[in-house]
């Protein structure tokens, strides 16, 4: 086995409960994004584009669809003889086994995996962020600063700063203070959840953290503050591209919709930094003679007979005659039958809207979640249903 300079550990175990019905059957990283992609495509493609070819994917929650999607990693050119993509679920050790209890614990439990490749550096990634980033530049920065830990950071609007891990840096970009979700943020430099560690530093930190019973075993909450307190060389690498955390329905919806706007920073059309995906093989999409499509993204295999405005149609979507779709995201293989109207909604994979339904109708009360309606994966909405804006339609609630 060839020694690797840098091994990536991709945290993909989150349940993503705030995405509601979209994660009923799958982990958050396997949720469809921007039509043909799935959220994990971005992190995996970043690895490929950064020449990192050993990626451990830490999984836990409903992993089947994610596993089959990743496969051998060949869709991202990661089926490499010296490395490759490895799915790392929780496992049984000599004495005992346990679930991954926090992000740091997940990596700690797999330290033998990392040791096997004996890397100089370990990069910790999150499987639920949408961004294009060349990690090799960050690694270069890490080496130049003789850093032990480097955090990728991004400037966020001040009013939103309290949602993130906020850090303060000195003139040399060395981090002096790190606070997770501060009430009174004293800067707007947020951690992106992308860390490069020297493997020796990380190993020590993980062992110390595992012995601390009060720790929540989380990188942001525990490991980084602990290491700062120990006086380790922790630096901030400033990233100035497009980056979105798509952990909630609102942020997921807006990040998708941003891809329709002109000044979109996440240029999916850029041939030099391609986002790969493991797509189904589908024919070109067909636009019928009664169709009208404006300001939208449409994927392969779609059949469109209705009107589609400001919307995203993922692969294999069917839009019947007389249908109107406004400001909505239709995930793969959704079927919308004749005469239905869909406004401001996210329709889960394989869901089916029968004839003459209205999804996202104006209701009597002020709607929740900015009026975004969410239909769960595989749900069938019976003929003539009217679903009010802001509702989450899922298995437990019948309509």
């Amino acid at each position, binding site marked *: 086995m060839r020694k690797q300079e840098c091994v990536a550990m991709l945290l993909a175990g989150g349940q993503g409960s705030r995405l509601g019905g979209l994660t009923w059957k799958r982990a958050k990283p396997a949720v469809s994004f921007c039509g*043909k992609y799935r959220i994990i495509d971005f992190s995996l493609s970043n690895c490929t584009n950064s020449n990192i070819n050993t990626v451990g994917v830490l999984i836990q929650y409903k992993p089947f669809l994610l596993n089959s999607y990743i496969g051998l990693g060949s869709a991202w050119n990661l089926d490499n003889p010296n490395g490759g993509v490895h799915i790392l679920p929780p496992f049984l050790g000599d004495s005992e086994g346990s679930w991954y209890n926090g992000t740091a614990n997940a990596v700690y439990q797999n330290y033998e995996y990392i040791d096997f490749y004996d890397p100089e550096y370990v990069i910790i990634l999150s499987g639920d962020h949408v961004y294009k980033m060349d990690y090799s530049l960050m690694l270069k920065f890490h080496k130049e600063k003789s850093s032990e830990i480097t955090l990728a950071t991004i400037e966020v609007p001040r009013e939103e700063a309290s949602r993130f891990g906020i850090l303060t840096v000195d003139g040399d970009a060395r981090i002096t203070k790190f606070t997770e979700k501060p009430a009174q943020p004293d800067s707007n430099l947020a951690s992106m959840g992308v860390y490069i560690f020297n493997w020796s530093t990380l190993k020590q930190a993980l062992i110390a953290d595992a012995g601390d019973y009060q720790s929540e075993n989380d990188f942001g909450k525990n490991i980084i503050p602990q290491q700062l307190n120990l006086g380790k060389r922790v630096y901030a690498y400033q990233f100035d591209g497009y980056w979105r955390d798509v952990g909630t329905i609102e942020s997921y919806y807006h990040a998708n919709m941003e891809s329709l706007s002109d000044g979109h920073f996440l240029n999916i059309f850029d041939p030099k930094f391609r986002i790969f995906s493991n*797509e189904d093989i589908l024919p070109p999409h067909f636009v*019928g003679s009664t169709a009208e499509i*404006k300001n939208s*993204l449409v*994927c392969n295999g779609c059949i469109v007979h209705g009107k589609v405005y400001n919307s*995203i149609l993922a692969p294999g979507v069917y839009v019947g005659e007389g249908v109107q779709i406004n400001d909505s995201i239709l995930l793969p293989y959704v079927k919308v039958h004749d005469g239905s109207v869909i406004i401001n909604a996210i329709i889960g994979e394989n869901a089916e809207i029968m004839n003459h339904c209205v999804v996202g109708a104006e209701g009597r009360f002020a709607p929740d979640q900015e009026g975004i309606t969410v239909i769960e994966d595989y749900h069938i909405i019976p003929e003539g249903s009217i679903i009010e804006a802001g509702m989450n339609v899922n298995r437990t609630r019948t309509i």
Partner: protein
Amino acid sequence: MPNAIGIIFANNGYACLQGLAQERPIAAVPFGGRYRILDFALSSMVNSGIRTIGVVTPHHYRPLLDHLGAGKDWFLDRKAGGLFILPGVMHSLAGNNHTFCIKDLEHNIEYLKKDFVENVVISCGDQIFNMNIIDALDFHNDKQADVTLIYKENDYFGDLTDEMFLEMDEDQKVSSIRDQKGLEWTESGRPHYVNILIIKRELLLDIVGRYSSFGCMSLISILTKNMEVLKIYGSPTRSVIGTISTINDYFDQNMDLLDQEVRERLWLGADRIHTKIVDNPPTQYTLKAKVSNSLIASGCSIAGEVLNSIIFRGVILEKGCRITNSIIMSKCHIHENAQMEYAILDKAVTVHEGNVLKGSLSNPLVVHKSSVI
């Protein structure tokens, strides 16, 4: 897994298609928005479970090899078997019709010798079809046939010059293979052979051994000569759509894809047509886009008007342009207010502002690869 290997003759067909097949073989001509014509033969074999496929290369084989790569997109990058490139003979003679030429097989006899399977499925590479060969293979085994020819009850009244017709008894045993000479138009409804056959491997080796010294003979003419001693059967198919031998065939068969029924038969069923994956982003429609009755591949950016057309991958249509009854291949860029009707644009054509290109239904205008207009 069927007891068969495949050979696709990507070197048959000699039409130039008004330049579309000038720099590339017909098998590598783009078709239907994202495919190459060869994809149909290749996918049919792969979907039938055949995992060892040899492709006989034609005169201009660079585009073909570029497209095929290691065969990964057809699941043919395998430890045992997989995709084999079989160099065809007579590279210098483009323009000859080498339908199943014995010389090509002799040249690649190792491919046939080193496998252990019983049968070889042979297909040409210039037909548009999606056909599962399993039924025909079962039929072939049941009848203990030496050769099974796939035929179609003819519903095609076009050019019959190259068609071969079969005469069969009630047991489907073929008694004669003949061309159209002497046949009346009214007789053209009879079964015609569609350039796909199944043959016992040992028999094929024997034929190649015996006939290799005769120069460029076609397999079919040898079978015809030995009709008496061989057990040749015919097996029907409903799936073949057509051969592409003229620019009109090409244009019409592309346009047929705008028909829902044709698409269902060809590529919306369980057996998919596989092709080289490019990982394009979704197609982007702007506020100015106006698209109707058209087939549009991924990675396009559409701001103009498109009617009854087929748009390949990565095409840019700027605002005010108008595309009617046309085929626009990948990476074309149509600038503002350009118009085209009955045009076929080969790959990477740029049409500058305000130009008007017009062909007609019977004579579509073909624009060569990478032209700038």
